[in-house]
């Protein structure tokens, strides 16, 4: 009996709270904000399986911090970034998040890397009222939130989700190329599953049937059976839910068989490394993407300055990953600036949900959020490898 009274009371309280404006109940920390600086944290894979992403992303973030501080900081406060290595291990990500929250007292977690690592550690942030901003995973859990759980409002994503981007790019390709048989090869993990979901949803919507569905285990290096199967089904458009080596591997295998077919990669294939490693093999590859790939020699204006500054600071060429890292911090800075001189956690949340759009220097679609939508946008581009460069074929795509 006592329990049911308690339950009724809780239920009543829940309804009462639901009637209030939502931001009133979300606890947001004011830690990490001092009169002179704002402390933000991140965990990256700097030594694990996806360090090809983690290192340039962190470099991009460092460059952004450097730039912001050189220009006088955010409303007079310098930005300090504390980075930890998670090695793509959820256990280390949990410990790193706890360390950042407890010892370094970060104000926000910006651009943490990877799906399992982010999902395992996000509750720590929410419990402490730390914002989880723009993680480097395009999975649904980074922006979908339950309005009944006020702490979940602390998550925001500015990446192009795999499902939506695959759908938009596939729709464009089908309309342009009018393929007779569409096939897919995807990586057997959470990322590949997302691409596969986008693929099946779009084909369903267009009343088409997949001609062949193939998959491979992460780390595989031989794709002969998958490619042979797709060839025998006479596929003329192949969607690749692959990362780096597999993209090249699949295309090399097709070349070896003398099979001339159109390949469409998901967003992770849209990085300069694909061309750097694949050379001629990946010529002609299409990919879904979010923004133009920066090239030092052809870039103009601010992008050119940016690529030069990056090269000067890190001694390597900037790539798509570094743009994403750079944008994560820049987007944070934009909204923190918007939140005003008397920055608090609540003001930051209000600024983020305020609907103002952040425009980056790379000509990406605007990033804006509302109190019901914590995903920046789903506007997709299709790019193609032409003469060893990513070239935008069509932008502003949706499905």
């Amino acid at each position, binding site marked *: 009996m006592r329990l049911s009274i308690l339950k009724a009371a809780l239920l009543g309280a829940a309804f009462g709270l639901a009637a209030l404006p939502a931001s009133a109940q979300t606890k947001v920390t004011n830690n990490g904000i001092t009169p002179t600086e704002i402390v933000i944290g991140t965990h990256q894979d700097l030594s694990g399986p996806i*360090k090809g992403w983690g290192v340039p992303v962190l470099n991009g973030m460092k460059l952004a911090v450097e730039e912001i501080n050189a220009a006088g900081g955010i409303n007079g406060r310098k930005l300090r970034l504390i980075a930890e290595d998670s090695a793509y291990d959820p256990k280390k990500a949990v410990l790193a998040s*706890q360390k950042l929250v407890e010892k370094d007292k970060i104000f926000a977690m910006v651009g943490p890397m990877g799906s399992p690592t982010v999902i395992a550690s996000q509750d720590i942030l929410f419990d402490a009222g730390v914002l989880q901003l723009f993680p480097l995973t395009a999975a649904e859990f980074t922006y979908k939130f339950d309005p009944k759980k006020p702490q979940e409002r602390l998550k925001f994503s500015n990446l192009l989700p795999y499902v939506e981007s695959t759908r938009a790019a596939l729709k464009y390709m089908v309309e342009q190329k009018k393929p007779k048989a569409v096939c897919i090869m995807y990586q057997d993990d*959470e990322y590949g*599953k997302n691409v596969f979901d986008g693929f099946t949803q779009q084909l369903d919507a267009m009343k088409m049937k997949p001609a062949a569905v193939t998959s491979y285990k992460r780390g595989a290096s031989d794709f002969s059976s998958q490619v042979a199967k797709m060839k025998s089904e006479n596929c003329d458009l192949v969607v690749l839910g692959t990362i780096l080596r597999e993209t090249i591997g699949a295309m090399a295998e097709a070349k070896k068989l003398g099979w001339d077919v159109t390949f469409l990669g998901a967003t992770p294939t849209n990085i300069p490394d694909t061309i750097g490693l694949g050379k001629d093999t990946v010529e002609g590859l299409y990919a879904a993407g979010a923004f133009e790939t920066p090239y030092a020699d052809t870039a103009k204006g601010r992008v050119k300055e940016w690529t030069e500054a990056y090269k000067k600071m890190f001694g390597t060429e900037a790539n798509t990953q570094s743009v994403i890292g750079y944008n994560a911090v820049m987007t944070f800075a934009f909204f923190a600036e918007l939140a005003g001189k008397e920055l608090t956690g609540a003001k930051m949340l209000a600024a983020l949900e305020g609907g103002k759009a952040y425009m980056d220097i790379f000509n990406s679609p605007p990033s804006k959020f509302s109190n019901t939508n914590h995903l920046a946008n789903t506007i997709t581009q299709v790019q193609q490898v032409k003469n060893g460069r990513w070239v935008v074929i069509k932008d502003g795509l949706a499905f």
Partner: protein
Amino acid sequence: MRFIFKTDYDQDIRILKHSGYWWSYGILLAVMVATPYVLGSYMQSQLVFVFIYAIVGVALMILTGFTGQASLGHAAFLAIGAYTAGFMQSLGVPFIVYFPLAAVLTGVVGALVGFPALRLHGIYLVIATIAFAFIVEEVLARWESVTHGNEGMRVRTLDLFDIPIPRDSDAFYFLCLLVLVGVSVLALNLLRSPTGRAFIAIRDSETAGKSMGIDLAAYKVKSFAISAAITGMAGVLFAHKMTFISPEMFTLLLSIEFIMVIIIGGAFGVHGAIFGAIFIVMVDPFLTALKDDVPVLVSSIASSLGMAKETATDLRDDLSRIGSAAGLKGAIYGLIIMMFILFEPYGLYGRWLKVKLFFQLFPLYKRATFKRQKTYVKSERNR
């Protein structure tokens, strides 16, 4: 040096051999109980991971350390425990039921793995257990109705008799501590029983054991089952600590980490599992702390020695840039492990025993006490 006057045969196999044990373990337990009230949740979380790794370490110690059967498949047992917890919980089964159930289920799977492993030795057994781990990983990825496949599975907060125990609470810490203490006592107790002596006999020489009437098949399967069951329990705690599980978390790398726990700890005593777990879990946060604190410390020392403030700040920035170089932590970690295997084959527990003996025998300590005895070198032919 303590001399024990033995008046009873049981004294040889007592777990607490003399009053000193009561004192030292009593103090250790008191410290562990007081810890969550003193330390913050970051340290507490590290200790919880130490406990979970130590539970797996004890399990692996029974199988590898005492029965001599190497396994690189313990990540799979951990996964089975974790997924059992996640799935049972989603069906509304209470913790008090699915916790032992996970142990039983994992134990049964462990016994099944043990059967074909009967005819395999050494490196071949390792390969067989790796194969088993791959099969489990594949099943977890494919059996979507139960495991949610590669998308992974959210594990809700542990609920004990309608009281929620969040993963960062003191209660969760005590639960893990309790399981670790329970499992360690069970292991120590097992080892002084005829079963445990049979395990050790199998490890030292299968031929000799067989000729003494030990049923090799039965004991090997038993060892596998017990080890797997304990790992399954750790899996339940692991799932609740992580709150999210996916097949890619239970890879070969994790199994290797577990083997390293007992090798670094010292694969000849239950203590080794705990020492090893402390090392494996804590070394990374320790290196992180060093990376943060050493540059500040060095620059403050330098400035107190008369270095200009500007130069000291530059020094600090340079040092912290070196400290946060990508992969440096991994390299240091690898180096420490290599040093251990080269210079301390008995592991941390071995070092502990040597230090203890040094003080007990002072000044008569002989280095040769711990020299590897040739008689223990087994030949492949004479198993």
